[in-house]
């Protein structure tokens, strides 16, 4: 038994970022969990409507969007590591690439929405499109908020506001961005892949 070691190990375990951000993340995950369940339950009640609606979606765009968000998350985690290693210029570069991938997601998703609306599909078309636009639209807004936050922390990194021992704000935004990624990892198979 090594009590000193146990205390040290327990004390060294800490959340990346602020507790407030994690409470927010918990609330967001709960809200999306309910939406996922509502979507899956509704699909069980209207299998033909959902099968027909899913067949109209552009799964290639969904796949590219998944790649874009995963890549964006990768560059965000690299940016946090760069700040912690006092490599500010690398961090800025990583954040800019992460923002670019996030913007690619927004552009691709906007194209997909445009295609759907042009083909005459909207929120009132049927129950599938109602939940499709609700789920993906809610997530789309989260991506836009994440991009605003990433731009804000990029400016703060450029201004040298984060130092080796002071990265909590950056880690909070990074955690939020990874949460947006995790939510899309569920959304992508649920809406595009599982017919």
């Amino acid at each position, binding site marked *: 038994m090594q009590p000193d070691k146990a205390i040290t190990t327990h004390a060294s375990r800490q*959340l990346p970022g602020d507790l407030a951000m994690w409470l927010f993340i918990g609330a967001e995950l709960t809200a999306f969990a309910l939406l996922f369940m509502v979507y899956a339950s509704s699909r*069980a009640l209207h299998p033909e409507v959902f099968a027909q609606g899913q067949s109209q979606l552009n799964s290639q765009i969904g*796949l590219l969007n998944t790649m874009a968000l*995963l890549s964006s998350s990768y560059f965000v*985690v690299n940016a946090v590591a760069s700040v912690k290693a006092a490599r500010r210029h690398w961090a800025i570069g990583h954040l800019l690439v992460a923002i670019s991938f996030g913007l690619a997601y927004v552009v691709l998703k906007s194209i997909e929405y445009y295609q759907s609306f042009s083909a005459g599909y909207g929120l009132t078309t049927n129950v599938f499109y109602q939940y499709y636009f609700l789920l993906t639209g809610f997530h789309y807004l989260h991506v836009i908020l994440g991009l605003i936050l990433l731009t804000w922390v990029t400016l703060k990194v450029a201004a040298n506001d984060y130092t080796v021992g002071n990265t909590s704000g950056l880690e909070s935004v990074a955690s939020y961005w990874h949460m947006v990624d*995790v939510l899309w990892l*569920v959304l992508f*198979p649920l809406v595009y*892949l*599982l017919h």
Partner: protein
Amino acid sequence: MIKALLRFILWLLLLLLTLASASFAEQPDMRLYGLIIVLLITVVKATVISEFFMGLAGAPWLWRALMMAYVPVIASTIGTIFFLT
């Protein structure tokens, strides 16, 4: 350097798993197995993100457990609903 290499390998793994899940989902003769494989891949990808990208491997156990359980619980519920219908 080693951590950077690990992150790079995990990123490639995530991209490959995404391609694999899209491929499995398109197999018409693997409906049930395809569903299970796609959901398992989703769980693996989410675990990689939360443990290595979010950095929850070093977080308090309660937060780590909550995050680790989130996608498996969602995926198994979705899988059950899809399987039953």
